[in-house]
């Protein structure tokens, strides 16, 4: 099932002589269970693509569909609800609310959506457990967590409830290489469990966790690495 679909999407900032083509005629589909990485240099359109996918920005032309619904067809209120219920974000700097505990942060999207506190907490604890945080850690505040733990909370928050699309913008930015890898592994596992993941990164090692890697250059998709074959055939060509 296609969770995210970009159909001929372009985004132009400004107009006339000052117009900047941030993204040009881009097609992209991500199915449930699929993890896709977007790579490209600064200014290639990576973040524009992510913002469009999450409904934070609207395309100049073309359509963005999340779970089959054209985002442009929604009014402001419905779009906000769609963002809360269907889309989760993971940012480089975690963006946790400092005055809320890990569990309260993870529960936030549910509470904003009207779920009762008790039920939201129960779901939050379950979501935190899925990312490897126990009940004790769930009651800590963000400044009492390590960077890796904070990012786990952000991933739990991104995927709590029935949300199936997770958008991650350089989620390992401030983390050391092994902690960063844990975060990637976790995103990979959430996708294997049925989520659709879109990762923006300039780090090839992180893109390596994805099923497909899309290269952007000057707002255009220049190449896509094809889906992988069986892992068994790999080592035959790897000897030096």
């Amino acid at each position, binding site marked *: 099932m296609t969770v995210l679909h970009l159909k001929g999407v372009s985004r132009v900032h400004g107009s006339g002589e000052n117009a900047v083509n941030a993204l040009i005629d881009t097609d992209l589909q991500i199915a449930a269970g699929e993890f896709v990485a977007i790579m490209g240099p600064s200014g290639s359109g990576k973040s524009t693509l992510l913002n469009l996918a999450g409904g934070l920005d609207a395309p100049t032309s073309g359509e963005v569909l999340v779970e089959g619904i054209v985002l442009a067809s929604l009014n402001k209120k419905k779009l906000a609800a769609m963002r809360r219920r269907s889309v989760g974000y993971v940012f480089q700097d975690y963006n946790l609310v400092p005055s809320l505990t890990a569990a309260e942060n993870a529960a936030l999207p549910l509470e904003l959506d009207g779920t009762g506190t008790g039920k939201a907490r129960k779901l939050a604890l379950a979501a935190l457990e899925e990312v490897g945080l126990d009940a004790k850690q769930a009651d800590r505040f963000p400044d009492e967590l390590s960077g890796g733990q904070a990012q786990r909370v952000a991933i739990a928050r991104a995927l709590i409830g029935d949300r199936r699309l997770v958008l991650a913008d350089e989620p390992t930015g401030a983390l050391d290489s092994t902690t960063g890898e844990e975060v990637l592994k976790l995103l990979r596992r959430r996708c294997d469990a049925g989520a659709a993941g879109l990762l923006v990164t300039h780090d090839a090692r992180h*893109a390596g966790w994805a099923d497909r890697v899309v290269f952007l250059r000057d707002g255009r998709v220049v190449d896509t690495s094809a889906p992988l074959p069986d892992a068994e055939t790999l*080592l035959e060509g790897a000897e030096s």
Partner: protein
Amino acid sequence: MSVKHSLLALLERGPAYGYQLRAAFESATGNTWPLNIGQVYTTLNRLERDQLVEALPENDSGQRPYRITDAGRHHLAGWFASPVQAADRPRDELTIKLALAVTTPGVDVADVIQRQRTATLRLLQEFTRLKAAEDHAELAWRLVLESMIFRAEAEIRWLDHTEAVVARSELPAPSPFAAEPDPDPADLASPDLDQTEAR
């Protein structure tokens, strides 16, 4: 790759015969560099000749185990203590290819770079998947796999960098051959370049 030092290192774990050494080597490196058994025995003979290992009496099943000597231990310690020299590594075909690409008329350098990047990233994805598949991999195997992952990453970073440099610079006109001095005939043999392996 030094088969000699690898065998010495394995024998440091205890006496072993050829097939055991081959199996231990391949398991430590995740079958990345298959060793043929002939190569193992030739190397053991040479090590014995140099008194770095000694042959033990044949066991009941007719296998002859070898044991590392003190001289062998000393030699092995020296190997671990010295860095790998750049000259011991094979020359890099990709570097040569790109160096030629920027000076060869009619070559779309950006395209060469993108094709390589896609291929290397694909390899990186495959290595990563292998790594993900083995949550409790042997340490030695994990290390070999991660070495390949970081190397692939480094290559991609270098390609990104090269792409940016090439895009910003005017491509130089290919050097006309007439401008070069006549080559010394000795250079034509180009021993460094024709050498297939460092050792």
